[in-house]
């Protein structure tokens, strides 16, 4: 009458069946994502190039610092499609906007504000001031001080390797001429230059030089990289070009339901 005895008294079988049972929950959620074609929105610039591009070398270095410092422990980068978040932060995050993020920074710990659209919201000077001493600009802030970011020189000797690592997991940085040409087609000639791994160091220095994010032109600091990253967050897609219903389409089933458009 009791059949589970044979399972419970056989450790090997028990392990296998346990694994099967708990995998079902994960598989049901993950596997379809590989088959459902259009969860990631197709968003374009006015010229018809892909709007969402991989990070430039400097932004990418900044992102590594963001992760190193654990900013994600207090900040999400995922504006949810709720009215209050729309009013506070702007348009909800698209899947496309984090498609080159490895690992993504969506997060769910919201001690501080969401940062998905912080790019362009504040000036570089504000960011510098806020990073070294948040309470000097927002008296009630509980964010820690990060004064060393303005002192540490940016270590970028390994930037090519870092970009190559990203390329391995599918981020379209280019190494060969063919890849470069492909990027020119996808992202346009201007952007393609920034994605060329062979020119990574040169590009990194040029961007830092041109923008002087940290207010110290003579020195390339970690602050330069971090602010370059913060200033690009959420700025790639021009939402004015689209009717809102366009983004809904990417969440509507082609198989069933009542899509009566």
């Amino acid at each position, binding site marked *: 009458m009791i059949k589970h005895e044979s399972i419970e*008294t056989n450790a090997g079988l028990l392990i296998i069946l346990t694994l099967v049972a708990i995998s079902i929950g994960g598989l*049901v959620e993950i596997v379809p994502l590989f088959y459902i074609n259009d969860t990631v929105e197709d968003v374009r610039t006015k010229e018809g190039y892909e709007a969402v591009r991989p990070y430039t070398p400097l932004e990418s270095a900044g992102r590594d610092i963001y992760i190193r410092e654990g900013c994600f422990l207090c900040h999400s980068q995922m504006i949810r499609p709720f009215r209050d978040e729309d009013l506070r932060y702007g348009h909800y995050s698209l899947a496309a906007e984090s498609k080159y993020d490895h690992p993504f920074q969506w997060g769910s710990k919201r001690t501080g504000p969401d940062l998905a659209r912080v790019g*362009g919201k504040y000036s570089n000077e504000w960011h510098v001031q806020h990073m070294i001493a948040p309470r*000097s600009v927002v008296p009630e802030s509980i964010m820690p001080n990060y004064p060393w970011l303005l002192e540490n020189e940016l270590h970028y000797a390994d930037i090519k390797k870092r970009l190559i690592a990203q390329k391995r997991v599918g981020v379209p940085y280019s190494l060969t001429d063919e890849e470069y040409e492909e990027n020119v087609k996808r992202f346009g000639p201007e952007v393609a230059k920034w994605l060329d791994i062979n020119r990574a160091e040169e590009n990194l220095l040029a961007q830092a030089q041109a923008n002087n994010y940290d207010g110290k032109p003579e020195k390339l600091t970690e602050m330069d990289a971090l602010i370059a990253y913060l200033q690009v967050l959420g700025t790639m897609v021009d939402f004015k070009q689209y009717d809102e219903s366009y983004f809904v389409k990417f969440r509507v089933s082609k198989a069933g*339901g*009542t899509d009566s*458009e």
Partner: protein
Amino acid sequence: MSTDSNKPAVQTTGHAWDGDLQEYNNPLPRWWVWTFYATVVFAVVYWIMYPSWPVGKSFLGGVKTITFQTSSGQEVTTHWNMRARLLHDLQNGEEAVKQREYLEKIANSSFEEILSDPDKLAFVRSAGKVMFADNCAACHGAGGQGVIGLFPNLVDDAWLWGGTLEDIHTTISQGRRGYMPAFPQFAENGKVDNLADYVLSLSGEQGGDPVSIKKGEAIFQGEEGGCYYCHTKQATGMKSLGSANLTDKIWEIANVPGAKTYEEKRAEVRKVILGGIQREMPSWKGRLPDETIKILTVYVHELGGGK
């Protein structure tokens, strides 16, 4: 050990470990079992109502629908999904409809009409407060008091770029860059002290050496310093450049009010002259809707009292 003889005999699983360790096989409490069945039923209803199971290259959308409008006013009905639901909320939600009514009124009114209508003004005050907190307070402070040396005070009635509604509207929508060059060449020869003495004397600070003030005035008003190009001969500043009025007692950059002695005040002014100023008010045109900028304009104007 044998089973407790006081308790009614219960079933065991029949397993025995270590010779005599046995496991009861009591039926689950009835409430638990029914709750379990109820969750199963709930799941099935949920699958039918909402997007759920993957099918081929797509998924089942569910029977629950939601309707919203495209920007051209066309009605679209789709199966329930969060994005459509947000649009529906923004277009038809009770709060949103109420708010839109006001936003439309604001959009269709001139600044004067807003200021003279207590109902609209009350809306601007309450909505503006939230909008200011979300977008501006990080720099200008929660109450608009600013941070001396970094971000201007919007509560006082001194304006770098002008305090009329039109000026403020331009400031917010287009952003502003405050720029004054650095004058390191005056460091060595003591001329920076002359300039600082002169600048302090303009706003009535006592304690400067009259000879030094005279020298400073000559540099300021002459070609050597050329300060008057931006600050004007009267040193009252120019709205078109955002160059500070140096004759009032309000300080934007040099923390003169925070300094105790004359020497400290002079050091503050010296720092500004030697280091220059470069700061930026971001532009909000692309970022915030037109009505929001309009509301903020009136809100900020109310904070400072237009001049």
